[in-house]
């Protein structure tokens, strides 16, 4: 950004003259303000009995908010269950509902691309991963392109599945607690107790995962999508990501690409975010690659909750290994 130009006298005099003219003649008309009906922000003071309303951009945050806030807080996560919240684009009406919330919990790390394309009230936003933003990971092989004279630029380079490193998940929970406390959403002791209970469970998950993944320490794993980087970093794994959809049988060039990668890395595991097709699993096995499912649980599970899904993930790993 350029800083200020040289001397400002000419511009100041011009501005002064304009102000002189402005004042010599301007702005009568009274400031009569008639009665008004609707506020732009539709903020009506909530009655004492109305629960604070908290909107989130993914299910893990929703779960943490419910655990910490307890029944005294209404948590809303409007993304349809069959869509990936990271790439969901809400309609205007849905954005307006977000605006009406008392708090909006963001994941940070450029998760929920729609946030940059929508208008949200800044004072209600809570970036739950701001405290460890300096340790975000960037996808090194994100698509880049350029056009015109402006040069290269890239898209969505930051890894956004922060919560599958459970220490980061715990910090995100802590950020939610801080926000609830600052807004006086519930009794501070209750919030504290709830947070500690959640963090204890996350800590247990973390230590369990560390002992499970010790067996894979130093190994390189294939990953069906580049979303397990924090998981890999935390638990000492090396991942090579491909772009395979669990619900689709990979194309031949994708198999060829995997085969080529296999020559460089003698991986015997591929980690999937969802259960792959049996045919995919079978073919991988033929190539000497076992499949294991670790569901990041970005959206609400059909049954269970975040912790039960994570525990199931741990069991999958334990069983596979």
């Amino acid at each position, binding site marked *: 950004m350029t800083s200020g130009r040289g001397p400002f006298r000419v511009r100041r005099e011009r501005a002064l003259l304009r102000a002189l003219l402005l004042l010599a003649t301007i702005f009568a008309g009274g400031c009569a303000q008639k009665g008004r009906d609707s506020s732009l922000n539709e903020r009506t003071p909530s009655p004492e009995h109305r629960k604070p309303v908290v909107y989130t951009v993914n299910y893990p945050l929703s779960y943490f908010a419910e655990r910490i806030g307890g029944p005294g807080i209404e948590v809303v996560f409007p993304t349809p269950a069959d869509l990936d919240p990271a790439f969901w684009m809400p309609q205007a009406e849905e954005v307006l509902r977000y605006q009406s919330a008392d708090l909006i919990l963001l994941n940070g790390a450029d998760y929920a691309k729609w946030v940059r*394309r929508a208008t949200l009230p*800044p004072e209600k936003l809570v970036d739950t991963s701001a405290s460890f933003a300096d340790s975000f990971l960037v996808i090194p092989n994100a698509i880049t392109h350029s056009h015109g004279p402006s040069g290269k630029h890239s898209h969505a380079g930051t890894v956004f599945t922060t919560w599958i490193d459970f220490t980061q998940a715990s910090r995100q929970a802590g950020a939610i607690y801080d926000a609830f406390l600052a807004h006086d959403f519930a009794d501070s002791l209750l919030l504290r107790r709830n947070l500690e209970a959640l963090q204890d469970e996350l800590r247990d998950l973390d230590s369990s995962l560390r002992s499970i993944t010790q067996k894979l320490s130093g190994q390189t794993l294939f990953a069906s999508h580049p979303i397990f980087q924090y998981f890999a970093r935390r638990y000492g794994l090396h991942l090579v990501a491909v772009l395979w959809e669990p619900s689709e049988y990979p194309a031949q060039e994708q198999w060829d690409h995997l085969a080529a990668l296999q020559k460089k890395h003698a991986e015997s595991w591929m980690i999937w975010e969802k259960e792959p097709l049996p045919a995919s699993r079978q073919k991988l096995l033929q190539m000497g690659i076992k499949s294991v499912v670790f569901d990041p649980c970005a959206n609400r599970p059909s049954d269970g909750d975040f912790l039960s899904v994570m525990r199931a993930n741990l069991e999958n790993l334990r069983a596979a290994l």
Partner: protein
Amino acid sequence: MREVFYLATRYLSYHRVKTAILVTSITLIIYLPVGLRVLANQSRAELIARAKVTPLLLGAKGSPLELTLNSLYFESEVPDPMRYAEIARVDSSGLARPIPLYTRFRCRGFPIVGTTLDYFACRDLRLKSGRTLALLGECVVGWEVAHRLGITVGDHLVSSAENVFDLAGAYPLKMRVVGVLERSYTPDDRVIFTDLKTTWIIAGIGHGHQDLTNPATDTQALQKEGSTVVANSSLMQYNEVTPENIASFHFHGDPRDFPVTAAIVLPKDEKASTLLRGRYLSQKEPVQLVSPRELMHDLLATIFTVQSYLIAAVLIVGLATLATAILVFMLSLRLRRREISTMVKIGGSKGRISAILVSEIVAVLVLSVLLAGGLTLVTSHFGSAIIRSLILS
């Protein structure tokens, strides 16, 4: 008395040109200083009111007056931009809440102000129809914008090119009107409000285009090397944000470097305000933090000194005009000597004859006072609109 006024009005209406000139002159003598004073007082109140609800303004180093006038009234020259990082710096201080403004662009003569929802709450702006901003590419217009352009919810506005040859700079963006504000009798009535990010799109910092990873756009690719795609100039960039293409809109670069022209800074309390102002006193700071209220007070003190001189000048001219009017009356009396003599000869009473002459003067004065009063009322009611169209358009 009725007969006296009858003769007086007969005389005045017969000599209507002379009467009109006298009435006009005296009306102006009365109206000018009063009208000026009314305008000045209303201006002062309006300026101060606007400045009072704007505790602090943050902007690039430069003319504080220009920063204030542009940020409060959107009509003076656009100040140099500052980095968005400065906004974040204020926010992270915990001392105040910043409301960014980007006022670089215009549309059909009206300023486009990129900001956040906080602005509307800060200025207590209410919706008359439609809804508030929700997505990129939308705008909410002030009452006067809607009134003058005949705009309603669902219509579109296209931002103006900054210059005719603006080939590689700001892109005209077609924006959808989603809301019209109630009349606020403030400069906000003349503004087209958008999300700050929408103005960054107009500035060309953000855009939307076809997906270059899609094989259908291969003809737009100059070169593909691994994960890098270089597109040619045939790549279509969207000049309107629609539900179908909104997902393609993105920004390039670090948002901390994106431009804003100012920020309204709302300190938590007086102590926070003082602390903040202290932080920005250093000459090395690339930005300045000004108090519009203090600036306006100083400006008004200067300008109202000028106003006093203006009024003094008007009064002197007024006295001269009044002396001329008296001379006209006296000459008129001399010319009417024969008429007066006739009335005396046929027996008119001194009292009646004197009353007739005095009534003529009183009638002229009363009419002048009434006209001046009417003009003053009109001025107080319509002054701002008239002046805005004469001076600010």
